[in-house]
């Protein structure tokens, strides 16, 4: 099970490529501008990823998105980010 880290919003090559390279059990963590994809209005950009989608708290907070993210996205702090990297086999970053 891999952890993919994405720092770009949906509808970018990086996002499209991350989604096409993800395995069925892989997890996706949105950081930096990638948290734009965590907005409720963007949720359809990540079909079939229930329980496997995460967003970094401090990046949501900085962008005023803490009250605007989809309910089923798991928000993690930076320690949670580290924890996610512990439980996967390896990470792949898309930027």
């Amino acid at each position, binding site marked *: 099970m891999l952890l993919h*880290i994405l720092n770009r919003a949906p509808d970018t090559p990086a996002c499209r490529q991350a989604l096409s390279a993800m395995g069925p059990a892989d997890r996706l963590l949105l950081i*930096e501008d990638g948290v734009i994809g965590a907005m409720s209005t963007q949720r359809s950009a990540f079909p079939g990823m229930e329980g496997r989608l995460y967003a970094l708290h401090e990046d949501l907070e900085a962008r005023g998105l803490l009250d605007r993210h989809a309910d089923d996205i798991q928000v993690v702090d*930076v*320690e949670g*980010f580290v924890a996610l*990297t*512990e439980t996967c086999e390896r*990470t792949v970053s898309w*930027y």
Partner: protein
Amino acid sequence: MRYAILLLAAPYSHQASHSALRFARALLARGHTLEGVFFYHEGVHNAARLAAPPQDEPHLVDGWAALGEAHGVPLQVCIAAALRRGLLDEREARRHGKQGASVEAPFELTGLGQLVDLGLRCDRLITFGP
């Protein structure tokens, strides 16, 4: 676990360097080791000795240097990428007939082989790109 970080973006221009530094501090706080940080592509600019951001902004070069010194983390800057971008330590500056140096300890100019070595011997290599 043994971690390594690959940083591919310049400080200030992209958030990558901030994110990487936050991550580095968090992994150390969680009890892991950071075997090295490798700076490649535009990431070599994180070693810029002469960076002088305003007082009220994060000083990323100093941040990396402080982390390197406090925790004994090697800060390895790809020499080929650095030279092309004007990041030279004293030895390289002399070798190329330049006055002054733009990279100093604890940052060290090393070969790309160090990245491969770090990546393969650590448990996790996390990349932060632009």
